[in-house]
């Protein structure tokens, strides 16, 4: 899932200026992250109205990153959108850009910061799991990714700052290399860590499109 964080309302206000504003949310990731579901869109609507900023309407796209779906859903809101000076999108960076593509003349305001591709641990606990590098190495490390989960992206074992299973940059963060090591030890596969992993092929991370 794409994990997002809502920007501060003050920052959003700065971008929206005097409005009027049309609000867009997303039914998928932003809903699960509580950053751009119906609940959050209605909450922000209330806040704008308190500041006397007119909200011309709102919609939850299903999901925001689906170009054709968006076009279809937004058609029925076209009058409300035409009344708005700004369109505030509470979705991931992808969803926001899909909307930008459809309304290329309007001011699109991003209401979230897109953080990472991660998993939902618990209701409000999200953790990074993938860097979208284009060249998956998970089978080398027992299904655990040191590229997305080690701040130094180390492929040949932990740095000297791994202490008691924690990462040197943040003691709340587990050292992924500590986890990889104990995982492979339990499976009797520590030999996997003996081979020197060659420099990563980053050319695969710059694919800009894919047509099926």
């Amino acid at each position, binding site marked *: 899932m794409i994990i997002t964080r809502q920007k501060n309302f003050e920052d959003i206000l700065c971008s929206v200026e005097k409005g009027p504003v049309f609000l867009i949310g997303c039914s998928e990731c932003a809903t699960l992250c509580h950053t751009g579901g119906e609940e959050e869109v209605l909450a922000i609507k209330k806040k704008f109205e308190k500041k006397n900023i007119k909200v011309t309407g709102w919609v939850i796209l299903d999901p925001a990153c689906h170009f054709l779906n968006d076009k279809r859903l937004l058609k029925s809101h076209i009058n409300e959108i035409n009344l708005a000076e700004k369109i505030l999108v509470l979705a991931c960076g992808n969803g926001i850009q899909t909307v930008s593509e459809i309304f290329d003349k309007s001011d699109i305001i991003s209401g979230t910061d897109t953080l990472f591709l991660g998993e939902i641990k618990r209701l409000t606990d999200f953790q990074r799991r993938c860097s979208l590098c284009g060249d998956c190495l998970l089978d080398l490390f027992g299904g655990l990714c040191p590229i997305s989960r080690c*701040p*130094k*992206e*180390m*492929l*040949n*074992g*932990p*740095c*000297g*700052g*791994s*202490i*008691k*299973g924690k990462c*040197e*940059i943040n003691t709340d963060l587990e*050292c992924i*290399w*500590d986890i990889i*090591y*104990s995982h492979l*030890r339990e499976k009797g596969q*520590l030999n996997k*860590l*003996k081979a*020197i*992993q*060659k*420099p*990563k092929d*980053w050319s695969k991370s710059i694919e800009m499109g894919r047509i099926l």
Partner: protein
Amino acid sequence: MDFRSNLNKVLSEGKFAVTAEIGPPKGSDANVIIKKAENLIGCADAFNITDNQTAVVRLSSLSGCSILLKMNLEPIMQISCRDRNRIALQSDVLGASAIGVRNILFITGDHQLFGNHPDAKGVYDLDSIQLIQIVKNMRDEGIFQSGDRIISGNPEIYIGGVANPFADPFNYRVDRLEKKIDAGSDFIQTQSVFNLDKFNIWMDEVRSRGLDTKVHILAGITPLKSIKMTERMKFNVPGVDIPDHIYDKMKKAEDPKKEGYNIAYDLICEVKKIKGVHGIHITALFWEEIISKLVKETGLYPRPI
């Protein structure tokens, strides 16, 4: 290798090596390095010039090395993977070799969050083991990481790496050293030794695998200058292991500087006795002037011995 750095000579002749660290200034004044180096002439076989250590911007290690070379002192250039990708790293290795740098120590680097530019984007295109292997291939095979051939002059570099015998997962630490040796390390400088027991356990494993015959290990020594520094290193510097008995000694000391010196003196005497330790690497943070006394009184002077 057709060339021999002084450090290489000392180590291959079976002599006990001494290296010392010179931290470049937060500024462009070459005299800071010159002054520090002048105090250390004759005290060490080669001098590490750090590469923006703890991610704080300082005069570049390549320039620091150039300043030492002009003084006829032998540098060990440090290169970190944090700030440069494989293109810049290989280019700097060629450039260093061209101006006469003959030892380079390759490290992954302290994370940028610890430094004075925590907003910076870290590079980490390579890790230290990959970089060591690349430089060995540049030197011995004349090829770049891409497989492209070097046209005019393989870099003549004695390759160094670091090891932290105190970090976790502890059982993996010798495996990681072995990988660094397989990648091409000629010498290893360790994290500062304070916890002798742990260091001995690590060295036992190093010897039992015969790794001490494949690489020269230099034990890190850091004289503690004050209780403040001790606490900073014990509680805030990742990967440093200062046992409580040393911390207590420093806390109780009437003259912490003298106590710190004595602890370092004892540690040097102890690590000298450990089979497989081929030298020491002294990092005297903001206390470079103590190095000469330490080297002289531990019987390591004049160099080499």
